[in-house]
């Protein structure tokens, strides 16, 4: 078979085109197939901007009377002076205190941005962080202890139990540790 396009070289590639539900088979040589149906596709997708997302959400869910809506949008952060409307327009907070000022409205925003989540899980700074890290360490030693009991290494298990007790007493005194490192 000869290539349908250049009618010179032998056809080696079959391209199936779907046009109005009809399947068309085309037979091309490698050269024509490459030029007619390039190998390469680029990935293109317009990302929905955050600002768009936030304002879309706001206009969709706000079906309360106009007056009430305006009142709600008048909430202003006393630290930076930004209103909740400005937050929604810019898609950004003006300062850390905005989180406190707009707190009741935020779970709805976060739900949409973070897969339904509204509460932080994970690391925390300073003394709070130390407390969390301590709790994690206790949990991990506890599971080691269980393993030790399962394998009947009771001496090891007792050692770990004492360690847990030690750490727990630190936790109850508010993470006051003499060795800061």
């Amino acid at each position, binding site marked *: 078979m000869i290539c349908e396009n250049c009618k010179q070289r032998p056809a080696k590639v079959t391209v199936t085109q779907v046009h109005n539900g009809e399947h068309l088979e085309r037979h091309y040589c490698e050269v024509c197939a490459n030029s007619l149906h390039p190998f390469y596709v680029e*990935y293109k997708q317009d990302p929905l901007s955050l600002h768009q997302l936030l304002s879309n959400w706001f206009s969709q869910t706000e079906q309360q009377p106009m007056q009430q809506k305006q009142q709600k949008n008048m909430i202003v952060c006393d630290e930076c002076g930004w209103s909740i409307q400005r937050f929604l327009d810019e898609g950004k*907070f003006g300062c850390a205190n905005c*989180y406190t000022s707009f*707190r009741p409205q935020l779970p709805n925003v976060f739900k949409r941005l*973070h*897969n339904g989540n509204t509460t*932080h899980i*994970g690391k925390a700074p*300073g003394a709070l962080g130390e407390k969390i890290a301590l709790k994690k360490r206790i949990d991990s030693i506890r599971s080691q202890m269980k393993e030790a009991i399962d394998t009947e290494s009771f001496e090891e298990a007792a050692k770990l139990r004492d360690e847990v007790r030690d750490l727990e007493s630190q936790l109850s005194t508010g993470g006051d540790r003499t060795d800061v490192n």
Partner: protein
Amino acid sequence: MSIEHFLDNSISSWMAGEGKHSDIVMSTRIRLARNLNGYRFPLAFTEDEAHKIDQSVSATLLDASDELQMKFSSIHIKDVSELSRQVLVEKHLISPKLANSPMTGSVLLSDDESVSVMVNEEDHIRIQCLFPGLQVQEAYDQADELDRVLDKELPYAFDEQFGYLTSCPTNTGTGLRASVMMHLPALTMTKQMNRIVTIISRLGMVVRGIYGEGSEALGNVYQVSNQTTLGKSEEDILADLQSITEQIIQKEREARDALLKHSANTLEDRLYRSLGTLSFARIMATDEAARCLSDVRLGIDMGLIEDIDVSILNECMVFMQPGFLQKYAGTSLNTSERDMFRAKLLRERLQKEEKQKAKGEESE
């Protein structure tokens, strides 16, 4: 260390290191967003606030260099020329936002450029750690160490309900963005990327192109990162990224094998044509150059093209960007001049490989 050190080479020294799966994963990046209590976020703060934040963050990091075993160079953005800022952006050492900020801001860079801390970008502090290949945990540990040092000295903005407070609500919570930069030519050629992008987005992750404007994936280089930062612990974010990346690596390897099996000749022809274009073309636009570089890199990774160093993709993707070209040319260039100069630099880069090869043969 002077700023010239960071501007002269398109390739950062951390890139020379070996990482896991480095034939597909070019690098791993961890970013932590942090803000200080008592100051408004950069979108709303005054120059006075900006100055105070810059001073205290910079001083804290510079003082901690012994503890971190890392020397930092502090670069004030205002002291840097516009072209040099562009070069720093093209190396991903600073963001366009920081480069264009009218307020006082800085970047602190480690000597090997694997760590960059931006001050007064969108947030007061952006810690960024870059590692070669797939090293999600290693990069996070490094960022976490810096975070710990800063946390000891500076009061972070934190809320029990919402976690670390950031300027953008998409970063609230952990403030953690973990990403891997992947070269996925076979998945792109076999038209599987769109499907993968859709699946990944359902898992709370994002895929996008990393070079070029907008979402176009220049050079088949994609970035996969977590989208969710709230309600998910650091460990879970890292574990999910790790597992998704491993699955994409697997798919890319399968696609490469399939290409070899079903169209080895066509593939080899295409990859060598790209090598020919890079070696001889006189005019090269960015997208064509990126496509050819991606092909050559694929040829190297698949063992079809020999005697060219794998760093060619990483290095050339950086130096063929407008800022770098103009820095090398020592003058400003319009678009068509840039395309010619780009072609010239790429030719020279490949000739260098040829010479090294010839030298190697001589000494044998």
